[in-house]
């Protein structure tokens, strides 16, 4: 029955209730909001835009992309066009987060022993004092 092929992208505007014969691994809606979220075409454009804008040093946008399209990420064979972008965003976010965390931890734990005098110049509270960033309140 057509209703059971809810995964057919052309029919995704058909939110038949999940109680019937759909296999449980097929999500009806690509977004985490379900019926309150996007349709598939809009979802594709959003996923693409989030992915592309994430390259502007915005890994959080990649993370939001993965969160927003969580059903796509979770079910391995759903919405193939959206899934490409979401998987690439997830990879990008993990790589970026790993790099950032390692740098931040190295900085925090290594401290002056590792960096020498540069540490004092880079650490945020000294910088804030020098630039007077909090002095105006």
């Amino acid at each position: 029955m057509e209703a059971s092929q809810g995964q057919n992208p052309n029919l995704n505007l058909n939110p038949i209730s999940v109680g019937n014969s759909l296999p449980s691994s097929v999500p009806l809606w690509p977004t985490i909001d379900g019926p309150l979220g996007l349709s598939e075409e809009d979802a594709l454009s959003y996923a693409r835009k989030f992915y592309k804008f994430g390259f502007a040093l915005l890994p959080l946008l990649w993370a939001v992309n993965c969160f927003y399209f969580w059903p796509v990420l979770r079910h391995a064979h759903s919405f193939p066009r959206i899934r490409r972008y979401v998987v690439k965003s997830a990879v990008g976010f993990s790589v970026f987060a790993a790099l950032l965390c390692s740098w931040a931890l190295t900085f925090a734990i290594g401290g002056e022993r590792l960096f020498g005098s540069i540490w004092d110049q880079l650490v945020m509270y000294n910088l804030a004092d020098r630039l007077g960033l909090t002095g105006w309140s």
Partner: protein
Amino acid sequence: MAQNQSHTRRSVLDSLGEEIVRIIAPVSICMILVVLLVSILNNPNDSSSASSSISSIATMAYSETTSDSSWDKFLGALLNSLAFVAIVTVITFVLVLLFYLRCTKFLKLYMGFSSFLVLGFLGGEIALFIIEDYAIPIDCITFFLVLFNFSVVGVLAVFMSKMAIVVTQGYLVLIGMLVAYWFTMLPEWTTWVLLVAMSLYDLAAVLLPVGPLRLLVELAISRDEEIPALVYEARPIMNYDDLDPRSGVTQRRVWRDSRRIDDSSLNNYESNSMHEDPSVRESHQVGSEEGQMYATLPLQAARLTPGFEPVISRSHGNNSTVDRNLVRAEEGHVLETNDDSQLSAPLIDHGRNVQLHQREGDHDDDDAVPTSSESLMLEGIGLGSSGAIKLGLGDFIFYSVLVGRAAMYDYMTVYACYLAIIAGLGITLMLLALYQKALPALPVSVMLGVLFYFLTRFLLEEFVVQCSLNLLMF
């Protein structure tokens, strides 16, 4: 299916509790976050922060010092508050004028820029306070990168029409928290008098026929436009059994979707969110807008940082018998998925009126009454739907300011004020259901909160302390 039939007569009571909880929860979260910030940042031993007050528009008439007498402080606070309310009134009228003149593009750009500044500057400032107080060894590269990400994603979340609901709601609560914390840094007397003054202003601006917010609402209604504003919208209750197979994507519009191609219709500079969204009149709407945020920027200039509110209005048809909110005879508006809504970011006045606009829509009845009488005239069709309750960000901010200021004294006042505010919010929701028109949400809660604060501070604390000292109870 029998299952469907048994659910066709869902009354409003089935979802009322959940809807109220979905609006009280974020208000409570915002208040708790502000209390946390106040607790960790305001060290009473740190005399430099306690006695110095920020210079901003709110203190331009008078700067409180600890050495003045009580009467002087009171007069000074009164002057400050009057100046602030006057400025807010003027700005609201400017907003009404701009909305009347349909200046869209400029407003949008300005709003986007200022929201970025608010999230970036205020958020960064508060993060710097925390870093300095606790000597967290974070380096500047990481800090700026994280801050940049946070503010850009925040601006997108607040402005984009279809971002994840949780992300949008979370960022709105964060914006409310940041601005509220900023306001708790005002001198004490000024804060209290300002709260009372803003609630009186709210009352006047919404209910008086000459009030700017009421003018704005009427203007929006007469043009059949939505007033975009920073509004927190609770997730609507979904009745899955009644989902119409034809209904497609639930209509959820963040920005007013102008059905006539009028690009000026979206720019609503007015912060008061009157949620007169014609397409979602059925939705429960609690509107309050958030006024401009006056923030002191590093250059010691008092700057107007407008807040903006996207009007989030959701409506979804959940009854297969009537294709609800989405069909309007006079507009020919049919089921539409997210089309390109224009972004409009209205300026919100601080502490504007909170308009609670709740619609008690019966989900299944065709004769469900739209919230406001105006929408009755415009619609012609009374469609019920389960919308969501909306509360403007100005309410979040002023409630949190009250509780934050109470936290600066003692936690006992925090508990009392929290209960008072929630009670006031409940009363306002009831009044909204009763009157079915836009109502200000600030007055009842703030007045109750202020009353409870002073009663607790001067009466209850004495009692409790004496009982404890004498080992009587507690």
